[in-house]
Every structure is written in structure tokens, then in C-alpha cells.
């Protein structure tokens, strides 16, 4: 029997039992749809996190004090103040793998302009901070070295702060605000950055010269962190090694002592987050894969029932000259049709689910051709594999036994 006839017979057999065929396919539809949707959502959030994090500069190197924490409890505050401005100077002078270095001193407090006020974080940094963190001046200018030296009360505002104090899109350059009751001249505003991959508002900040923030606002002799740029993304690891060496020397750490600071690169961080989202994607995919398998077992179940139910038909087909392999092919085509049809519908539904999920979440889901191809291949294999066993059973029947079957 040729394939076009087999195909017609299979289509007719499925149409005769529309409801049952649909219910069988439902297993596959749900399985494939969830595989496609889960992988799309996983891939989508991975891509968006990666993109967000790259937006912060892929060759950024961060240095923080090494908080000794056990079970979330800080063991003394002594080691939160290990980083000093002298470390910044040392890195700036000695590290050949770093192009820019800036301290970071954070102070949070109330900011007031006439009747408006807002709570935000003031970052005390050097001019180099902007290129390191991929920040850009929108209006006005960045402070100069004289203003840093003189601890001038000048600042630049992030767009959220501008919006909170002056309204959206206003240009407050030249106005004076009060930060923790000290008057600060606004010399510039920063470009919009949007939310970070972790859902943080990156525009809710004020930057000011580190000297001003350290002395006038925070009143501390240490710094909260150091931000630097490696000469290139590839040199990140080398930069970490060199910076560690310099800091261990300036901190006078013994050979055996652990680092009293933590140092990591953005590219390292991206890798780490990516591997987490990878695991998440695999996990989601695996769960969806199980439902696909259950769908496959559904097909096998139906095919078994179908073969048993149609044993007399098989007997008749054999009695008029159908060979074992004709019968085998007939049932294989039928189950393959079921799974491929289910697979196609599943892909469509999966795509729609991913779209829907995308409109509810921030990340745009990414339906990869690979996952579609994978789902389709899996479907095909399920069809062949789970159709094969019952079909084989039917094909091996003796014609007379099949005819007499009750």
C-alpha cells in the first residue's frame, strides 16, 4: 500500500474518532507548548539580563570590602572600612591593566528643592566614574578636578531625582538643592538608564565629588567601594589579579591572610548570572519535557486501545492481502500524524503562551528555532516510538486470530 493511501486511511481513522484524536493530541499539545513557552521565557529573561548587565559596562571591575558574614550576621563592622582613598591612588598609579579608577562613597538622605523633597542615594565619585559605569551627562557638565580638590558642593542628578523634584523632563541645571540641609549647585543631569536586570531603578541617584560626600555628607575616612575599567573585557581576569596584588600590598596582608576586600568583574558576574538562568531554563525545559513524555504515553495508550479495538479490521485487511508491514505502516502513519499534528498545534500554542507571558513580564520571550526543531523532533520520535509497539503487536497477529478476536 503506498503512502498517499496510508495517509488517507490514517486521516480517515482519526476523523472517525475526532474527540479521541483530539484528546490524544492534547497531551502532545500541552507538552510541546510548555516546552516551547518555558524555553522561550527562560531564553528571553537570560538575554534581557545579559543585555542589561552589559549596559553597565562589560569591562567594569568592582572592589568592595569583604564583609565577614555568618548566617547573615555581620561579624563586626571593623572590616567595612578597609578601603581608603590611598587604595584608589595606588591602583591609579600602578595598575597597567586598569584604564580608569574611581572611589565610591554612598550617603543616603533627604533632598529638598522648595516644596518638593525626595529620598535618594548620593554617590561620591571621581570624574572617571561616568565612563566606567557607562553613565552619560545629559545636560550641563561633570565636575572638574578643582571642584574635587575644593570639596565643592556641586552635583549631577539622575532622571528619577529630576522628576521627583522638578517634574519630568525639566532642566534644573544652575538651580540649588539642599542635600541633608547643605546647599548643592546642580551642574548637570544624567541620561536615562532605566531599570537594571534586577529591577533596580538606575536613575534614582545623585553624583557628587567623592571628597565632598566623604567629608561633608558621610563624614567618614574610608570609602565604600572602588570602580574601575579594565583595558578590555578579555583583560578582566588579569586586571582582577593585578588589582588584588596591589591592594594586598597596600593593606599589608600576610601571605596566609585572606583578602579583606572582594573584587569581581562585570563579565564574571554576567557569566555567573547567565549560568543561573541557564540552570533555570534547563529546569523549566525538563519539567516541560516530562509533560511531553506523558503526552507520548497518552499516544501509546490510545494506539494500543485503537489496535485492540480494530483487531477485526486488521484481520480483515490481512485476509484480503494486507501484509504485516502494511498494517505496521498504517498504524505508524496514524500515530505519527497524531503526534506531528499535536506538535504543530503545540508549537503555535507555545508561541502564543510565550507572547502572553512576555506581555505580562518585562523580558521579551525568545522562541529559538532550536527549541522548535527540538520539540518537533521529539514529537516525531514519540510518534514513531510509541506508535511502533502497538503497531508491531497488530502486525504480528495471525489473520484468523485477528478475525476471531472479540
Amino acid at each position, binding site marked *: 500500500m503506498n503512502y498517499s493511501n496510508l495517509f488517507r486511511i490514517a486521516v480517515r481513522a482519526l476523523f472517525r474518532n475526532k474527540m479521541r484524536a483530539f484528546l490524544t493530541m492534547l497531551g502532545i499539545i500541552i507538552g510541546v507548548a510548555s516546552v516551547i513557552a518555558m524555553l522561550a521565557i527562560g531564553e528571553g529573561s537570560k538575554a534581557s539580563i545579559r543585555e542589561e548587565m552589559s549596559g553597565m559596562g562589560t569591562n567594569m571591575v568592582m572592589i568592595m570590602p569583604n564583609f565577614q558574614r555568618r548566617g547573615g550576621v555581620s561579624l563586626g563592622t571593623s572590616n567595612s572600612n578597609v578601603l581608603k582613598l590611598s587604595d584608589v591612588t595606588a591602583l591609579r598609579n600602578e595598575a597597567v591593566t586598569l584604564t580608569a579608577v574611581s572611589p565610591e562613597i554612598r550617603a543616603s538622605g533627604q533632598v529638598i528643592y522648595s516644596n518638593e523633597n525626595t529620598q535618594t542615594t548620593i554617590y561620591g565619585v571621581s570624574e572617571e566614574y561616568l565612563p566606567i559605569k557607562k553613565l552619560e551627562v545629559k545636560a550641563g557638565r561633570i565636575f572638574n578636578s578643582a571642584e574635587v580638590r575644593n570639596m565643592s558642593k556641586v552635583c549631577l542628578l539622575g532622571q528619577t531625582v529630576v522628576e521627583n523634584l522638578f517634574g519630568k523632563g525639566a532642566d534644573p541645571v544652575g538651580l540649588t538643592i539642599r542635600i541633608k540641609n547643605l546647599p548643592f549647585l546642580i551642574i548637570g543631569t544624567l541620561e536615562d538608564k532605566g531599570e537594571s536586570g534586577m529591577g533596580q531603578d538606575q536613575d534614582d541617584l545623585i553624583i557628587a565629588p567623592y571628597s565632598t560626600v566623604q567629608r561633608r555628607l558621610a563624614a567618614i575616612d574610608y570609602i565604600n567601594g572602588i570602580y574601575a575599567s579594565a583595558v578590555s573585557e578579555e583583560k578582566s581576569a588579569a586586571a582582577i589579579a593585578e588589582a588584588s596584588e596591589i591592594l594586598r600590598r597596600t593593606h599589608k596582608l600576610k601571605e596566609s591572610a585572606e583578602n579583606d576586600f572582594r573584587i569581581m568583574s562585570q563579565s564574571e558576574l554576567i557569566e555567573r548570572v547567565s549560568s543561573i538562568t541557564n540552570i533555570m531554563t534547563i529546569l523549566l525545559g525538563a519539567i516541560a519535557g516530562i509533560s511531553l513524555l506523558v503526552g507520548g504515553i497518552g499516544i501509546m495508550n490510545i494506539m494500543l486501545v485503537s489496535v485492540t479495538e480494530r483487531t477485526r479490521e486488521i484481520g480483515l485487511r490481512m485476509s484480503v*492481502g494486507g*501484509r*504485516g508491514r502494511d498494517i505496521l505502516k498504517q498504524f505508524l502513519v496514524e500515530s505519527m500524524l497524531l503526534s506531528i499534528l499535536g506538535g504543530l498545534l503545540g508549537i503555535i500554542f507555545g508561541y502564543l503562551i510565550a507572547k502572553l507571558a512576555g506581555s505580562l513580564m518585562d523580558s521579551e520571550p525568545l522562541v529559538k528555532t532550536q527549541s522548535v526543531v527540538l520539540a518537533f523532533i521529539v514529537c516525531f520520535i514519540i510518534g514513531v516510538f510509541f506508535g511502533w509497539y502497538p503497531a508491531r503487536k497488530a502486525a504480528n497477529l*495471525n*489473520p484468523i486470530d485477528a478475525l476471531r478476536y472479540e
Partner: protein
Amino acid sequence: MNNIVIETNNLRKDYHIGEVTVHALRGVDMKIHEGEFVAIMGASGSGKSTMLNILGCLDKPSVGSYCLDGVDVNTMNRDETARLRNRKLGFVFQSYNLLARTTALENVELPLFYNGKIKARERKERAVKALEDVGLADRMHHMPNQLSGGQQQRVAIARSLVNDPVLILADEPTGNLDTRTSFGIMELFQELNSKGRTIVYVTHEPDIARFATRNVIFRDGKIQKESQVADRYFATEMLKNLGPEIEEDFD
């Protein structure tokens, strides 16, 4: 004498059910020539169906040889016997065995689907011709459940004819039918036989057996008696004698 279509030698068939062995056939020698019209008779359980199934290559004997149209069936594998059924045999069952929800035409076409040499066009032409031969030209697109028992059996006979077989085998073809319809089927068989078709059928009704030219009587898995039918019935006459069909009023 005509060609020998069927020749069996010491045909035996045993069924093993647990410890018990049932000897369904205990050594049957049978010879049937081309153009014969044979009725196999016998009590229930005497092995008639077993014999016919073996003749129809639906089953294999435990012992003994069977030559169909000059070829030894015992040496054939499954695929070869399937081909044999497809090309040389037509089988008619007591319970018609039509595919449900499939038109009469497609039911009749079925054997030709399993013959790769026959293209769609020829398949259809031959099925139409076979249905015309059994007098169902106007029922081609009916489903089995839209046909009477007699009509369904005619479709089954058309199906057995469509591959132009050397032999038609029928196991109690009139078993489910009333007298008049049975005679109708026998009329059809006699007509086919008069055109040279070899037919072997099983029946336990002596009346139905008298339409054949030869009777073979089975008893306990053996041939008890063979005889030419002396006072043969002719279905066309018998139907005339039954008188016109009574149209019952169900209003």
C-alpha cells in the same frame, strides 16, 4: 478434466488449550477442480470452518500438505501467503466483515489497495464492475449500516470477486440471512459459478447445500461422505416458487 485448484493431503489441525488438545481436523484429503461448486456440510464443531480457514490461507495446518492452484502453501512465509490471498483468493464471512463507516465502493476496493500494480483508476473501475455484478450498482456510496444484511453480504461477495480470484471461499455466507435472501445469495453464487468461478462454501443447512454441484460432509474432523448433488436446486426457480415478496404494512 479441468485443472486442480485445491489438493490437500492428510490435513490435520490441533488446538492446544492448556493440557487439552482438540483435534479439529484429523486427516483430510480433498481435491477440488476448477469450475466446481462445492458445499461443505457437517455438524457444528466438525471442523468445517477450520478446513475453510486453512484453504483460505488464513491459518496453517498442523500436519499435511496443501496445494493451491499448483503451489505448495506450506512452504510459504507470511508475506507470500498474504500475496496469495490478495491475488488468488476471495473470502466471504458469515458476519460480512465490512469496514464500518466506509462506503460499499471503498470496501470493495480494499483488496486492490494491497496490490501495488493496480492504480487508483483501475481500482475504482474494477470495484464498480464487481458491485454491478452483485446487483448493487445503485448502492455504491452507501455505508454498511445503510444496507440490509443481504446487501451487505453482496458487498462482501463483490469484495471477494474484485481481484478476480481462482477460488471463492465462503463460511456460512447465508448463516445470518432469511430464506429468501439466502436464495438470493445462492442465485448470485450459481450465476458466478456458471461463468466458471470455483466456489467452496460451508453450510449446515441441507437445503442450502443443494445449490452446489458437490457436497462434502464432515464429521469429527474427517470427511465422512462425498457426493455429487443429484437433484440440484436452482435459485432462480426457487425464488419464483417462493412467490412475490410480501410487502408488509407497518403503518
